[in-house]
């Protein structure tokens, strides 16, 4: 991991990636396909805009009554024999899971995709406790082999070509050379089949936590989450407290919206609702099920009514896919678990505003994220609010003095009148230093021309103009 400050790391990686033409080609190809499919699915909705409003309403209801729905969820799922553990932060959650692993003498864990697990670094913690962790989602498996974090919250290996994946498979798995996505997928399938059948514990996330029936809902395409929650003896689900929705029927709206916005599908291949471990009369399923309800600073975001709707996020990744910044700097430059606009909005709340405020400046404020969000989170305004909060919290001394000077100048007409001729004198000598190390505007002039002052101001023009040729006699 880099030891740079997050803002320096961002500046360095963003600069490198945005000049990488190969990267650009891969991302544009991947996202080009996504836009076509997403628009096809959106068109099938009788009213996509109303569906967005309604989805936003469902999450608004849940988040603004979070205590009530969390208790309802926890009680209902516990009634079917699930153990519920409330964790204030990642350390508590990891300690609990490692404890379950230790008490049961577990050797291996099969993990299906969980961004919440990424957020608390669960994988490395379990490895430290001596448990082998295998990612079962294909994209996650690939980036795990490459020892990289996921590139995108929905498409973790979007930045890699088949050649790179073949290379890491040959190097780490000793597999035969493979040339097509199909062959590569089958290699991973073969490896994983063994793991499902022998792993002692399956770990998953959850896309939704249904309060009224006490179920977690997992959305996926590959079937890895179904296998890793059905076969191992113990199933552990890590659930951020914001994942709550009030009713099972809300899924009838949210599942198609998540799939449409997330990957341009009408609905994903598997949407599984789990309400507990193997019940009396059931043929199979885990003996134990644990649900971890994780706060990890989510209540801090909840305490900000202005940005509370950022907790409505269903992690579809749509805002990443349309973001001009994401498309240029790529997912890794952010240095966060959650990339793109939603990551820039919530990371300052989860990990500290002063260290992560730079992400809110990396935005063109075009509003594409707000427009695409299936639950109508006001993302680009939240970026502005983060900027404001960052300045209010800790303004730079020179910036403060600059504005004071500006204020002083603009409120004194006599002084202002003298500033223009002075500026023109400065302008006359400026070319001597322009684009050199002594240029005070060097960051600007590196890629742009510095605009010249006009030869005379409007006031001077007005004073020196000839009397206009207006014939008043016709009146």
């Amino acid at each position, binding site marked *: 991991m880099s030891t740079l400050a997050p803002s320096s790391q961002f500046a360095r990686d963003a600069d490198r990636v945005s000049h990488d033409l190969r990267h650009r080609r891969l991302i544009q190809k991947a996202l080009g396909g996504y836009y076509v499919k997403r628009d096809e699915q959106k068109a099938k909705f009788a009213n996509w805009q109303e569906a967005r409003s309604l989805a936003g309403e469902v999450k608004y209801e849940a988040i603004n009554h979070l205590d009530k729905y969390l208790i309802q969820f926890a009680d209902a799922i516990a009634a079917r024999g699930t153990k519920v553990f409330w964790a204030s932060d990642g350390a508590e959650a990891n300690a609990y899971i490692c404890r379950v692993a230790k008490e049961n003498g577990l050797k291996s864990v099969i993990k299906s995709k969980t961004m919440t697990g990424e957020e608390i670094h669960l994988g490395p913690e379990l490895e430290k406790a001596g448990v082998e962790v295998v990612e079962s989602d294909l994209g996650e498996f690939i980036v795990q082999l490459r020892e990289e974090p996921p590139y995108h919250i929905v498409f973790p290996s979007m930045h890699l070509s088949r050649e790179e994946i073949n290379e890491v498979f040959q190097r780490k798995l000793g597999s035969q050379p493979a040339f097509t996505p199909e062959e590569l997928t089958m290699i991973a399938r073969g490896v994983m089949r063994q793991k499902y059948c022998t792993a002692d514990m399956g770990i998953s996330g959850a896309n939704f936590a249904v309060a009224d029936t006490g179920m977690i809902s997992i959305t996926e395409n590959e079937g890895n989450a179904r*296998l890793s929650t059905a076969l191992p003896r113990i199933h552990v689900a890590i659930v951020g407290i914001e994942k709550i929705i009030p009713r099972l*029927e809300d899924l009838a709206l949210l599942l198609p919206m998540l799939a449409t916005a997330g990957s341009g599908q009408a609905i994903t291949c598997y949407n599984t609702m789990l309400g507990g471990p193997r019940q009396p009369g059931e043929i199979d399923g885990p003996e134990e099920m644990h649900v971890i309800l994780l706060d990890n600073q989510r209540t801090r975001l909840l305490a900000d009514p202005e940005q509370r*709707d950022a907790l409505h996020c269903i992690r579809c990744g749509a805002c990443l896919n349309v973001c001009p910044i994401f498309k240029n700097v790529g997912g890794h430059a952010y240095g966060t678990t959650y990339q793109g606009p939603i990551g820039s909005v919530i990371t300052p709340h989860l990990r500290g505003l002063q260290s992560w405020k730079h992400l809110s400046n990396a935005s063109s404020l075009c509003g594409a994220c707000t427009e695409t969000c299936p639950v109508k989170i006001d993302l680009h305004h939240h970026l502005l609010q983060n900027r404001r909060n960052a300045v209010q919290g800790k303004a730079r001394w020179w910036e403060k003095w600059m504005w004071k000077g500006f204020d002083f100048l603009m409120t004194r007409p006599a002084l202002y009148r003298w500033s223009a001729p002075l500026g023109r004198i400065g302008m006359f000598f400026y070319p001597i230093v322009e684009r050199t190390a002594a240029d005070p505007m060097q960051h600007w002039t590196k890629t742009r021309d510095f605009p010249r002052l006009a030869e005379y101001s409007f006031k001077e023009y007005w004073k020196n103009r000839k009397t206009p040729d207006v014939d008043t006699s016709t009146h």
Partner: protein
Amino acid sequence: MSTQAPIDSRERILARIREALQSPAPKRHLNPPPGLPTQPMGTDGAGHAPQEWLPQVPESLEDRIALFERNSKELKTRVIRCANEAALIEALKILATEQAWRRVASHQFSLGHTAILSAGLPVTWVDKGYQIAELESADAGITGCECLVTQTGSILITAASSGGRALSVLPPHHVVIAHRSQVVADLSEALAVAKTSHQGKEPAFLSFITGPSRTGDIERILVLGAHGPKHLTVILVD
């Protein structure tokens, strides 16, 4: 697990939530349409408005079946229609020859049990438990289902209706046998069926299956059979 449960942060988290919710959040840009997203389409007898925002579903059962077939085909699910039980047995025999099945796995359900036996397929019955390796090496998993969803081309399964949690996902070919009366309009109706058909006790396992297992994780190119079945076949009996 040890006898003593570890102390968790339930009360602390709830206290933080309650404190945070003291200041209400503004309602921005939300102009929701009237009604809740809870009413199944077409069941507005109780005075509810039907859902007007999701993809629309036709009224008659024949049209619904036709749309279900179209949606399924788009997602690479094969749909076979059978006029009666004899045709079902025939369809199973043809599938077995075509796919070179040596052994299938299944569970006891009314529509399938006798048909599978009559088709003369070697079967592993999972009802009284199974070895994972035995299920993994079966050529197909044949299951019943809760219902079929027109709107999305999905199959809703529950542990009780489909032989548990793994039968439908571990073997490389999943075959669903369903009766035409099991075709429902949309996801809401399917969830309502699942909620009410088990004596008021929701099952602990529900899954919407829509097409065979797939991934696009390598260059966003579609590959079938990522971890689950490569083939999904629905046999619809009239």
